[in-house]
C-alpha cells in the first residue's frame, strides 16, 4: 500500500504529466483536471494519471495477477519498462520463445484455477503465440494474452513488425480486441478477464498499440461483471433436473463420462457423491482424468482411442450415458454411427453449442456441472448396480492380463514406457502435478499413472501440441511451491521446445523431467506400422545426449537403460532439490494398446496387435 502511494506521488507531479502529454486536446483536459488532485492523492489510489503501459500493469494487479510469462520486443517496450517498477507485485518469467510463454501461462492457469497472463510483442512475437493460444482454446483454459501493436498511425501500412494478430487469432480466441487509446485499457482488460474465466473458459487476446502504451491517462478500474451479449451460465431448469433423475433411476446400465468441465467447475467431490449414490461407474476423457480417483471402485478408466478396454466396450452396452463437462471428441467416440447404440444420452455441458454437436443428446442440460450435479443428487435413488459394475471388472482383468501387466511389470526385454510411468507414479506424492507432451508417452501416462486427486494432470488434449510439455511444466512449477511437478516428455516433443531448459535454469524452476526416449516419433511410427505397411517415413530420430545437454544448463540428470536402475533413479530424481532430468531409453518399436482404430467403433477396441511385417 505504501509503495503504491509513493508511486502515485511520483506520477502525479504536474511537470512530469505535462511533459509527456500528447497533443491531444481531450487527454490534456483530463490530465489538467487531475493535476490539482495531487494535494488529496492519499485519499485515492485510483484516479491517478499514468501511462497506458502502467495502466495495463495496474489493471493486472487489480485482477490479482502475480505472474506473467512473456518475451519483450520493440512494440511492447513501454510495458516492460514499467514492469521493472512493479517487480514486487508482478513476477515476469522470461521464456526462450513466445510459444513457451503461452504454454507456460496455460499450465499456470490450470494449476491455480485463475487466468494465466502472457505478454508478447507485435509481429513475430504475436504470431509465435498462435499455437499456444489455439491449444488453450481447444482445452478451454483461461489465458489473457497481451500483444503489443505498432503505433496506431502505422496500423494497416505493413509497418515493421506489424501483423494483423486480431485477424490471425480470431478463430482461436474466445474474444479479442485492439486498444489504440490508453483510456480504454482498464475496461478492455477487465472485460478480457471476465470473458476468459467465466462460462466455458478460454483464451482472450488484447492488442495494444505502442502509442496507447505511452499515452497519459487517468486510471480508474472497475471489474467487469456483466456483458449484455454474453451469458456465461444458464440457470437451472428444474424440469431438466427431474427428467435426468428419472432417466438415471430407471437405467440399468448407466455410465458417466467425465470431462475437463468437471474439474473446471470444481465438481470433483459432487461427481464422487453422485456416482456413489447411484452406483454408477465413471469413465473419464483425457483431460478429465483427474476428475475421479483411479483408486475408486467405480472408476471405469479412460475413454477413447487409447483408453481402457472396459469403458470403450461397455459404452456400447450402456443404456444411459451421462456426459458431464465433455464434448464427445472424435478421439473419444470413434465411429459416431456405431457409438452407444443402446444408450440414451444426457449431456451436461456449459457450452450450448457442444450439445448435439457430435452426439445427439436425448436430454441436453446447458449449465454448470457442479450446480447440476448438486441439484440432481437428492433425486437420485440409491442403487448398487453390482452386476453392471462386475462387467467392468471382468473386462479390466482381461486388459490387465493382455496389456497392462506386460507393459508395467515386464521381467525381461527392453525398458517399457508403462513401467517407467508406474514406478514414478508409485514414488511420487499424490498431489504431484503431472505434465505431459503429446504422443505415445502421453498415452502411457494417461493409462499407467494413478491419479487420485483433482487437478493433477496437465496435458495438451484437443490440439495435441507437441512441444507443450516442457514449457507447461515450468509454468506449472511456477504456480505452486509445495507440489512437485513431473513432466513426461518424448524425445520428439522435447526437442520442439528444448530451449525452455534455459528458462528453467535462469529461474531455478524445480521441474522433474522424464524423457521417454525411443528415438522415434513413436505415435506416428505406430500408425506407420499399423496402417502404412511399416514404411517409416521420417519418424526415426538421431538424438543428442539429453543428459549432457541438460548439464550444459546446469541441470543434473541420469540416463537409464535397465529396469534394475529404474527405481533408484526415479527416487533420486524425486528426492533432488532443483530441476532434474531422467532419460529412460525405452523400447524403440513398442505400440500403445489397446486401440480403437480410426473408423472403428469403440466396442471394436483391440487389445493386441500382431505386426504384419
Amino acid at each position: 500500500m505504501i509503495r503504491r502511494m509513493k508511486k502515485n506521488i511520483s506520477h502525479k507531479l504536474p511537470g512530469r504529466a505535462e511533459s509527456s502529454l500528447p497533443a491531444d486536446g481531450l487527454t490534456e483536459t483530463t490530465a489538467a483536471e487531475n493535476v490539482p488532485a495531487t494535494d488529496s492523492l492519499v485519499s485515492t489510489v485510483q484516479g491517478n494519471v499514468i501511462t497506458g503501459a502502467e495502466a495495463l500493469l495496474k489493471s493486472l494487479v487489480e485482477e490479482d495477477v502475480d505472474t506473467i510469462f512473456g518475451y519483450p520486443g520493440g512494440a511492447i517496450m513501454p510495458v516492460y519498462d514499467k514492469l521493472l517498477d512493479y517487480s514486487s507485485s508482478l513476477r515476469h518469467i522470461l521464456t526462450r520463445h513466445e510459444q513457451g510463454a503461452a504454454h507456460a501461462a496455460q499450465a499456470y492457469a490450470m494449476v491455480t484455477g485463475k487466468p494465466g497472463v502472457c505478454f508478447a510483442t507485435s509481429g513475430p512475437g504475436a504470431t509465435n503465440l498462435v499455437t499456444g493460444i489455439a491449444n488453450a482454446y481447444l482445452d478451454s483454459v483461461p489465458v489473457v494474452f497481451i500483444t503489443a501493436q505498432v503505433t496506431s498511425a502505422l496500423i494497416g501500412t505493413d509497418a515493421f513488425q506489424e501483423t494483423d494478430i486480431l485477424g490471425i487469432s480470431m478463430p482461436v480466441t474466445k474474444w479479442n480486441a485492439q486498444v489504440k487509446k490508453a483510456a480504454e485499457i482498464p475496461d478492455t482488460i477487465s472485460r478480457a478477464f471476465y470473458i476468459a474465466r467465466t462460462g466455458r473458459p478460454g483464451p482472450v487476446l488484447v492488442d495494444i498499440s505502442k502509442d496507447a502504451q505511452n499515452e497519459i491517462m487517468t486510471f480508474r478500474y472497475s471489474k467487469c461483471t456483466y456483458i449484455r451479449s454474453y451469458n456465461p451460465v444458464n440457470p437451472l431448469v428444474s424440469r431438466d433436473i427431474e427428467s435426468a433423475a428419472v432417466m438415471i433411476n430407471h437405467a440399468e446400465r448407466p455410465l458417466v463420462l467425465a470431462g475437463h468441465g468437471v474439474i473446471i467447475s470444481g465438481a470433483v467431490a459432487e461427481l464422487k457423491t453422485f456416482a456413489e449414490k447411484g452406483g454408477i461407474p465413471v469413465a473419464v476423457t483425457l483431460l478429465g482424468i483427474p476428475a475421479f480417483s483411479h483408486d475408486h471402485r467405480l472408476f471405469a478408466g479412460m475413454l477413447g482411442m487409447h483408453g481402457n478396454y472396459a469403458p470403450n466396450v461397455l459404452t456400447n452396452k450402456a443404456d444411459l450415458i451421462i456426459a458431464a463437462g465433455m464434448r464427445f471428441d472424435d478421439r473419444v467416440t470413434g465411429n459416431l454411427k456405431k457409438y452407444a447404440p443402446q444408450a440414451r444420452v444426457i449431456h451436461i455441458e456449459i457450452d450450448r453449442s457442444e450439445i448435439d454437436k457430435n452426439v445427439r443428446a436425448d436430454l441436453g442440460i446447458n449449465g454448470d456441472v457442479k450446480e447440476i450435479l448438486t441439484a440432481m443428487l437428492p433425486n437420485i435413488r440409491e442403487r448398487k448396480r453390482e452386476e453392471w459394475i462386475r462387467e467392468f471388472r471382468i473386462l479390466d482383468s482381461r486388459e490387465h492380463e493382455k496389456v497392462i501387466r506386460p507393459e508395467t511389470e515386464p521381467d525381461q526385454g527392453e525398458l517399457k514406457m508403462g513401467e517407467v510411468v508406474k514406478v514414478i507414479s508409485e514414488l511420487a506424492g499424490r498431489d504431484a502435478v503431472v505434465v505431459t507432451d503429446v504422443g505415445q508417452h502421453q498415452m502411457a501416462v494417461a493409462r499407467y499413472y494413478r491419479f487420485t486427486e483433482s487437478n493433477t494432470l496437465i496435458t495438451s488434449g484437443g490440439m495435441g501440441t507437441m512441444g507443450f510439455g516442457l514449457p507447461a511444466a515450468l509454468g506449472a512449477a511456477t504456480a505452486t511451491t509445495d507440489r512437485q511437478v513431473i513432466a513426461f516428455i518424448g524425445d520428439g516433443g522435447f526437442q520442439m521446445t528444448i530451449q525452455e531448459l534455459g528458462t528453467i535454469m535462469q529461474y531455478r524452476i524445480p521441474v522433474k523431467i522424464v524423457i521417454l526416449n525411443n528415438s522415434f516419433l513413436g505415435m506416428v511410427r505406430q500408425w506407420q506400422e499399423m496402417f502404412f505397411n511399416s514404411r517409416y517415413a521420417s519418424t526415426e530420430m538421431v538424438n543428442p545426449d539429453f543428459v549432457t545437454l541438460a548439464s550444459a544448463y546446469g541441470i543434473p540428470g541420469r540416463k537409464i537403460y535397465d529396469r534394475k536402475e529404474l527405481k533408484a533413479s526415479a527416487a533420486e530424481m524425486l528426492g533432488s532439490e532443483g530441476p532434474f532430468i531422467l532419460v529412460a531409453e525405452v523400447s524403440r518399436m513398442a505400440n500403445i494398446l489397446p486401440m480403437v482404430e480410426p473408423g472403428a467403433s469403440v466396442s471394436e477396441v483391440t487389445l493386441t496387435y500382431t505386426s504384419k511385417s
Partner: protein
Amino acid sequence: MKQEFTISLFSESHIGILSRITLILTRRQINIESITASESAVPGVQMLTMVVRTTPEIVQKVARQIEKVVDVLKVFVHTSSEIICQEMALYKVTTRGLMSGSMIGDIVRKHNARILEVKPEYMVVEKCGTRTEIKELLALLEPCGVLQFVSSGRVAVTRQVKELNAYLREMDEARGTRQEALEFYN
C-alpha cells in the same frame, strides 16, 4: 438435404464481429449467398441477415456457434416459409430500348417497379421483391439493353410475435442475477 435458410442475428456493433461470424461459416465451407448488415431498431444493436444453403442439422450447429460469439446477442434461423423477405434491385437500361413497345407499362403495372431517373441515354428502374421476381424482370429487360444491374441482399422479418426488444429487456433485467433461460428458436 440442403435447403435455403435465413440466419438473422443481432449483435453489438463492434469491429470484427462480422469476421468472427463469417469465420464460423467458412470453416464449414458454407457459402453466404447474400448478406445485409444494418442498424436495428434498437440503437447500438446491429442486425445481420444472411442467406445460406446447407442442411437443417448443420445450420443449427452453426447458429449455436455464432450465438456463442461474445458480442452476438441473439441468432434466429428460419426457413423461407417462416419469414417475409424482400430484396431490392436497380436496373440501368437504355432509354431507346425501354421506349419500344409497351415495356414501360409492363414494368410499372405488372412488375410493380418504379422508374427513378430518366435521361436521354438511360433510365433507372427500381424493383423490390423476391429473388425470382427480380430475375424475371431482369430477363424481361435484357432485350432492351441492360447497362447495369445491381441487387441487394435479403432483408427479412419473422412471422414470430416476440420482438428483439423484449429479449434485450429481459437480458437487461436479468443483470446481476440469473436470467430465465431464453427460448432458442421462438
